């Protein structure tokens, strides 16, 4: 109980309050404490990748064991994960490692690494293709769903129409002042709404942070209430 609940609450409270005070104390000791905290944060962030890998591996091994629908894809995920990691570790990220050049004598330091090769010629085309499919879904949705059913929807439709045409050179070709109209929409009505949302979000973040420091908000600890 102490390790799982009380200790994390104490750590959050102490370090939360300490970092707030640190901000207002321009002393070298305070600065060095701040730098140490940043280093710790970077180290902890690096460990989150291990948790992500463990979680991915566990999930897909369970899928394979239980032979759930599409379990074969889990094999591809795991093989890709380990092959990519091994290529990066032994082959280097952007420059071939000495080990890699020793194993493959014809590899030069200026050559593309195997990791970069998989990135450029596998991941890049695959990810771009998947994302570009969005244009086709958007076209279909624009045709079937974007209807002037109410006043709000009509307003949205007209504004979206103006911005869509005004954001491309053809719109400027049709009417020279269209880019200025678009800039006006973005600079005034859009900005007013965005700023309201932003202020709301930031107030929410401040409130949640204070609740976490004071131990009122405990959901991040997991395990329900």
């Amino acid at each position, binding site marked *: 109980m102490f390790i799982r609940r009380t200790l994390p609450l104490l750590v959050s409270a102490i370090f939360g309050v300490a970092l707030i005070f640190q901000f207002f104390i321009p002393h070298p000791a305070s600065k060095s404490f701040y730098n140490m905290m940043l280093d710790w944060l970077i180290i902890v*962030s690096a460990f989150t*990748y291990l948790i992500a890998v463990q979680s991915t591996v566990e999930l897909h091994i369970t899928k394979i064991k239980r032979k759930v629908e599409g379990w074969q894809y889990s094999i591809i995920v795991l093989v890709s994960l380990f092959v990519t990691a091994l290529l990066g570790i032994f082959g280097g*990220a952007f420059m071939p490692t000495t080990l890699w050049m020793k194993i493959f004598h014809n590899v030069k330091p200026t050559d593309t690494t195997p990791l970069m090769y998989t990135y450029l010629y596998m991941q890049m085309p695959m*990810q771009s293709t998947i994302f570009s499919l969005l244009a*086709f879904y958007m*076209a279909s949705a*624009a045709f079937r769903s974007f209807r002037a059913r109410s006043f709000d929807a009509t307003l949205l439709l007209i504004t979206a*129409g103006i911005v869509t045409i005004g954001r491309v050179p*053809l719109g*400027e070709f049709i009417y020279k002042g269209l880019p200025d109209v678009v800039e006006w929409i973005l600079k005034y009505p859009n900005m007013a709404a965005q700023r309201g949302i932003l202020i709301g979000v930031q107030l929410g973040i401040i409130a949640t942070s204070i609740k976490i420091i004071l131990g009122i908000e405990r959901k991040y600890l997991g395990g329900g209430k």
Partner: protein
Amino acid sequence: MRFINFINKLDKRWIYLVLALCIIIPFLFPIGFPMKTTAPVKSIYDFIEDSIPEGGVVLIGADYDPSTMAELHPMAKVIATHALSNNLRVLFVTLYPQGAGMAQDVIENVLREWNNSNPDNQKELGKDITLLAYVPGVSAVVLKMGEDIIETFNEDGYGNKLSDLEVMKEIKNYNDIDLMVELAGSAVVLTWLIYANGRYGLNVGIGTTAVSAAEYYSYLQSKQAIGMLGGLKGAAEYENLLSKKGVYWGRKDATVGMDAQSSAHIFFIILIVLGNIAYFVSKKQKGGR
């Protein structure tokens, strides 16, 4: 009436086909519509052109992946080339693992194109440009850079010690960086605005996707961001400005893409109009229900 029935029953595969043609044909037969330069784009260009002395440093944040590279990759290329053309040093940084590959691709392309077209003013990796190693931690990394950049990364992305690199000469923290341009289609932009600009006063410019651009107008108005390249059009406008200056950096990816985007946008509008005509006629036939 037959037309309305046709519209209502139109198979979406026809829409896909026409959209594909709208995108492919302009790539084969470019039209090249003229473009007006918007103020947020011009201010980033002017800042690099007029406010940074020779030898100054431009930090480019490559926090995007292949899914948004169509819009953001041309921005990275054109800003890096602009900085090199003014004899500025360029540092790439990424807070996102996939961004390292993007940055490496830009550096390789920009250096190749630059050195091929400028034999008298060759640029070198490590001397004029480099990629800082990926370090996890996002906001912690941005804050730590404000204290000590070399201590944050230790090495560049190629495994060289930063303290040995000429490109890092006299660079300690954000006080030695003249401009940071963050290229991202996500909220990472806010991390730079809030921490690097808000806490350390770093000049931040934004390069983002067209859909995200609307979110950052508040920061332009408050002068927290010095300028913004919004979507492919922002990149194309910047390409035009750099072309006028007489700088060459290879294929104008954004300008070429603008014709395709123009025709696709017009097709979208036609689809929306047709869809609405069909909707209102059908509604009228059903007695307004």
